[in-house]
């Protein structure tokens, strides 16, 4: 997994609440058996005017010249709700997003992003609002996120502190192999299974 330490990039404002994973990557692209190549389908229904995805919708934020190269996404409450599809973070990462900032995120989506080296920053609503205002007023402005210091820096240089689950932080900083980490406790898993066999034999 790609590690995340710090990142600075153009921030794009996606001004919608409850952006669900169907909107992030629609069902017709879930038939692939690979993890790669989902970036071109990101926000497909908003980003393109046609089903085939050949004509861009000029009104969609990521199609505006100043935001095209955005790597930081500003979003609203409950970002990533709905389906558990990991194709959503795959699409976001493949497009180039490294940081998503919103007041709240959906649960499964949060876990999926940690596994894909994307930093999700939950800031207070008024702080997110201030970031939205700045990058809408001055499109193309950059926002930084520093995971070691747990800070976000807005275009004006103002810093915001954010909280993050300590294990998620470690995983991201080290680009941790989750399975490898759990496998250090293989003996504990074996012990558990022994006990399970004795106490709840119907489960084995």
């Amino acid at each position, binding site marked *: 997994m790609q590690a995340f330490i710090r990142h600075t990039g153009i921030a794009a404002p996606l001004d919608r609440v409850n952006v669900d994973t169907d909107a992030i990557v629609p069902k017709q692209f879930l038939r692939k058996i690979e993890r790669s190549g989902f970036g071109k389908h990101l926000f497909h229904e908003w980003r393109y005017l046609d089903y085939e995805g050949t004509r861009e919708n000029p009104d969609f934020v990521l199609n505006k010249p100043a935001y095209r190269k955005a790597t930081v996404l500003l979003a609203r409450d409950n970002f990533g709700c*709905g389906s558990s599809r990991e194709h959503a973070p795959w699409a976001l990462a493949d497009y180039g997003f490294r940081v998503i900032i919103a007041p709240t995120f959906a649960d499964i989506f949060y876990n999926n992003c940690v596994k894909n080296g994307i930093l999700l920053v939950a800031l207070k609503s008024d702080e997110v609002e201030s970031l939205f205002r700045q990058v809408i007023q001055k499109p193309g402005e950059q926002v930084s996120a520093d995971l070691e210091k747990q800070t976000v820096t807005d275009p004006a240089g103002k810093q915001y502190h954010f909280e993050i689950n300590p294990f998620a932080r470690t995983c991201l900083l080290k680009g941790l192999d989750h399975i490898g980490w759990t496998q250090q406790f293989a003996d504990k898993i074996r012990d558990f299974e022994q006990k*399970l066999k004795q106490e709840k*034999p119907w489960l084995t």
Partner: protein
Amino acid sequence: MYEKIWEAHLVRPSQGDTAILYVDRHLVHEVTSPQAFAALRETGRSVAHPEKAFATMDHNVSTRTKDWSLVEKTSRVQMETLQKNCKQFGIKLYDFADAHQGIVHAIGPEMGITQPGMTIVCGDSHTSTHGAFGALAFGIGTSEVEHVLATQTLQQDKARTMLIRIDGTLKPGVTSKDIILAIIGKIGTAGATGYVIEYAGSAIRKLSMEGRMTICNMSIEAGGRAGMIAPDETTFEYLQGREYAPKDELWDKALAYWKTLPSDPGSRFDTVVELDASTLKPQVTWGTSPGQVVSVEDKVPDPESFTNPVDRTAARHALQYMDLKPGTPMAGIKVNKIFLGSCTNARIEDLRDAARIVKGKKVHKDVQAIVVPASEGVRRQAEKEGLDKIFKDAGFEWRFAGCSMCLGMNDDQLKPGERCASSSNRNFEGRQGPGGRTHLMSPIMVVAAAIEGKITDARKYL
């Protein structure tokens, strides 16, 4: 109850990092698993307990045919990949043409794979369905699918607990779907984010297992990691004799354990929500999020009436997408597609309730209506009872089992601008097909809409 199940599955408590939780059953389907199996191969890892995993094909299977040669090409690759993976790693697969094939959340309970006190995961957000049995069940991403396959465990942080108590008696024509839609309308689509919900109260106790599953199924639509209902005689009666349910002495032993699972009197929850079932009316969504819901007697709300500016903007977007005007009565909105299906509401009881209304009537001439049983088992049972005939005589298409138009990964899709009365779980933009418009409601409301070609109060047909 959540705490009891958590403690019973704790392999290693968190030491400032994360806890490791044992997984009893892992359900697998074709869409979210291929990358996990591929990664196992790449890293030279194996499946720790293939006997604790069960696989089926549901998301992109055709509901029109059981003929492999007619399956759409990319879907077929995905389905064949699952066959190959299950074969290589020794996982039991109920494949496309199997008599037990069906939506993963329907066949788990039906076959007795789902049992109280278990931890159950699946690469699908509606895994919360299995919580109806007093199991801790939740959806996971593909990386986590890989983690469970490799270790039979998950890295988990403990969730907060929410008690939703629903007392009172439901009025005729008001169903478990209306309970859960009303809850989501009340607490919001992120109202339970970070929580595991326990549903309790006299209204829940009176529900069948099917009704309980509908409620737990949509816990994720309120943001909850899982939803659960304490097991009782209804649960045990449902389970006994099913294929994978414990037998003989093991049944007695399991039963004794299951009876210890319900939350102790006076248990503390981080949040408590209460709802009076007797005041509920049939619910219908008007927007593009399950929380955008009113009763069938209400009107489409005015976005300007929302005090929160974010909700106001969301409502404006939703009405534009749905092509609805504020103040329009919900009853009377014309629909041209009908979907009775999904892991939320296509079990045998749903089909029975719907068929009672449909009997002797006809689908409106401007409407295309499909019935997609949740599983092949449900389909066979319905056919045994003659329900298929009632639906077909009325002009419904009677299909094979699958997820179908709940998410439109197969060829059952809405076309742009089409409006659907649907018994499924999500009314997101484009969910049932690009540009399609979805109104979520109960199965009986869905078939009442089929008859009239518009949203209508199903209670008049009781």
